[in-house]
C-alpha cells in the first residue's frame, strides 16, 4: 500500500521534470510549426552551463541558473535570427535537417569540452532533504520543488499567452503570420522571442533535471523523446495538457521501472504508443476557444 502510493508520488514528481522538458518543445511548435530536434541537447547544454557557472565563476546554484536562463534566452534569440530564420518556410525538411545537425554538433561539442563522465548539479543540503508524509512515506524536497516549478512555469506561460500583448501577438502569429504582420506585428522578432523563451524554459528544465539525476553529453536525444511524448500524450496546443502528459509519462516510467528496472524507459514509450492508438489527439486536447 505505502509502496504503491510511494510509486505514484514519485512518478508524478518525475512528471514535473518531463513537463518542463516538453513545454519548450511545444512552445516553438505551437507558434512556428518548427520541431526542434536539438531540444534535448539544448537542455543538456543548459545543465552544463549551470555546472560551469558554478565551478568557474563560483556562484551559487540559484545565481548560476538565473545567469543561464538569461544566456539561453539570448542564445535562442540569436539561433532564430542567424540560423533557423533562413530555413523556415513551406518546406518542413530544411529546418528539421538543420536542428538535427545542431543536435549532433551540440552532443559532440559537449563531449569534446566536458568528456563522457557523468555529472550532477550539487544543490547542497536541499538535495537530501525530504518531507515525511506518513510513517515510511516521504518525498524529496528537490523533486517536489521541480513539480511546483513546472506548475508555476506553466501558469506563468498561460498568463503570458492569454493576458499580455506579447501573448496576443504570439497567438496571432501562430494563427496566421501574414495577417499578424499586416496588423503591425514584427514576425521575425516574435519568432526569435519564442525560440528564446523556449531555451530559457529549457534552462529551468535543466536545473530541475540536473539536481535529481546524472547527465552526460549523450543523453540529449532521450530528453527530446520524453518531451515529445509528454506533448503528444497531453494533447497538442494545451499547456496544462502538456503538464498532465508529463505526469502520465512519469507515472508510466516509474510504475514500469518498479515492475522491472529494465522496463522503465520502454514503459514510457509503450504508454505513448497506447495513447496514440486510443486517443490520437492526446488525453487533454485543447478545445475550441
Amino acid at each position: 500500500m505505502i509502496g504503491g502510493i510511494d510509486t505514484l508520488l514519485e512518478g508524478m514528481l518525475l512528471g514535473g521534470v518531463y513537463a518542463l522538458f516538453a513545454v519548450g518543445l511545444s512552445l516553438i511548435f505551437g507558434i512556428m510549426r518548427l520541431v526542434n530536434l536539438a531540444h534535448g541537447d539544448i537542455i543538456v547544454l543548459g545543465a552544463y552551463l549551470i555546472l560551469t557557472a558554478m565551478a568557474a565563476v563560483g556562484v551559487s546554484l540559484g545565481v548560476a541558473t538565473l545567469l543561464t536562463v538569461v544566456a539561453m534566452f539570448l542564445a535562442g534569440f540569436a539561433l532564430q535570427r542567424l540560423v533557423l530564420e533562413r530555413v523556415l518556410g513551406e518546406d518542413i525538411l530544411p529546418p528539421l535537417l538543420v536542428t538535427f545537425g545542431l543536435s549532433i554538433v551540440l552532443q559532440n561539442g559537449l563531449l569534446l569540452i566536458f568528456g563522457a563522465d557523468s555529472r550532477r548539479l550539487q544543490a547542497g543540503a536541499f538535495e537530501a532533504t525530504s518531507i515525511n508524509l506518513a510513517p515510511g512515506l516521504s518525498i524529496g524536497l528537490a523533486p517536489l520543488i521541480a513539480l511546483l516549478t513546472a506548475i508555476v512555469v506553466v501558469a506563468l506561460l498561460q498568463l503570458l499567452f492569454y493576458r499580455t500583448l506579447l501573448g496576443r501577438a504570439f497567438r496571432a502569429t501562430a494563427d496566421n503570420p501574414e495577417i499578424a504582420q499586416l496588423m503591425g506585428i514584427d514576425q521575425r522578432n516574435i519568432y526569435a522571442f519564442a525560440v528564446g523563451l523556449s531555451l530559457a524554459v529549457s534552462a529551468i528544465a535543466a536545473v530541475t533535471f540536473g539536481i535529481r539525476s546524472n547527465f552526460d553529453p549523450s543523453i540529449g536525444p532521450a530528453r527530446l523523446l520524453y518531451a515529445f511524448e509528454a506533448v503528444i500524450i497531453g494533447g497538442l496546443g494545451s499547456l496544462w495538457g502538456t503538464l498532465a502528459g508529463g505526469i502520465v509519462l512519469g507515472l508510466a516510467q516509474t510504475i514500469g521501472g518498479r515492475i522491472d528496472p529494465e522496463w522503465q524507459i520502454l514503459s514510457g514509450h509503450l504508454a505513448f504508443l497506447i495513447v496514440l492508438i486510443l486517443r490520437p489527439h492526446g488525453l487533454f486536447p485543447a478545445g475550441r476557444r
Partner: protein
Amino acid sequence: MTGDHQPIVWRVQSATKSSRIAAIAAAIIVPLLFLVPAVASRNLLQDLIFVFTMLALAQLWNVLAGWGGLISVGQQAFVGLGAYALFAGVTLIGLDPLLAIPLAGCLAALVAAVLGPLMFRLEGPYFAIGSWVVAEALRLGCAQFKPLGGGTGMSLSSAALADMTGTKAVAALFEIRPAAARDVIVYWIALLLVLGITFAIYLFVRSRLGLGLAASRDNNAAARSVGVRTDRIRYWLWVIVAFVTGMVGALVYLQKARISPDAAFSVVDWTAYVLFVVVIGGVRTIEGPVIGVLVLWALQFNLSGYGSLYLLMLGLIAILVMLFMQRGIWGSAAARWDLQFFAIRKLLIRDEQ
C-alpha cells in the same frame, strides 16, 4: 487562321544529352564494378560495401523524405530489425544467411505496415520524432530478447556462416579463405541492391505514382482534387522502403557478424550519416546521394580517427550546406550546367515542322 502558318507540334521529352552520356558510362562502369573483387584487397572491398550500403540507405531515405514527404529520423528501426531478424534466422532457426536476408526485409515491412497508420497520425514534423520513438522502443525491446544476447549482443559463429550458399564456390574461384569469400558475396549483393534501388527509384519518380507524390508535396489539396491518392501511395512507399531498409540492415550485419542493440539501432550510424549523404549531395536528386556518399567516404577515410570532432564537423558541414547551398553539391551543379544523369524531368519541346 491563315494557311501560311506551319503547324506547331509539341512533344514531351525526358532524355537529355547528359542523361544519354550517363547511360553509356553506366553501361561500362557497372559491369566493371562486379569484377572488382577479382583485383581488390579485402580492405577496399569492405570500404566499398560501406559505400554501397550507405548509398542504398541514402537513396531510400531520399525517396521517402524527398518525394514522399515522410521525414523519418527513425530508419535505424528497420536497419536494426533486419539485422536482428537475420541473426534470429541464422542462429535460432538455422537458415541460410542468404535466405534470411529477404525474410529480414519481410519482418521490417510487417512492422512498418502495422506501425504506419499509427505514425501517420502525427503531423508533419512530429512524424520525425515519432519515428525516432519507435526506433528507441524497438531497440529496448531487442535488448530484452535474451536468446540473441540481450543488451550486450552476440556474434555469428563461423560454423553458422560456413554453409552460406556460394561461399565455397567463391573461395575456390578466387583462392581465398571462407571469411574473405563471404565479403565478396556481400559485396555483390550490396552492389545489386544499390543498383536495383537506384533504378527502381528512377522508374518510380518518372511513373504516375511518383508524379502524383510530387504534385501532392507541392500542393496537397490540388493533387487530391485531381484524384491523387496521396495517403495510399505514401503508405506503400513507407512499407516498401522499410522492406528494403531491412534487407540492407541484414546485409550490413551479415558482413559485421556481430550485433548489439546499441549498434544496430544507432541513430548516428543509420540516420545521421545517411542524412549527411543526402544533404551534401542534394535532396530530391538521384545523383546527389552518389556524390554525398563519396564525400562521406573521403571524410571517413581521413578524419574518422578524430572521433567526436569528426562528427562535430559533419554536423557543421550539413548545417552550412542547408543554410547556403540548400540544393547540395549535385543540385547546385545540375542547376548551373543543366546536368541530368537520370532523366526524371519531363520537358515540353516545340518542334517547328
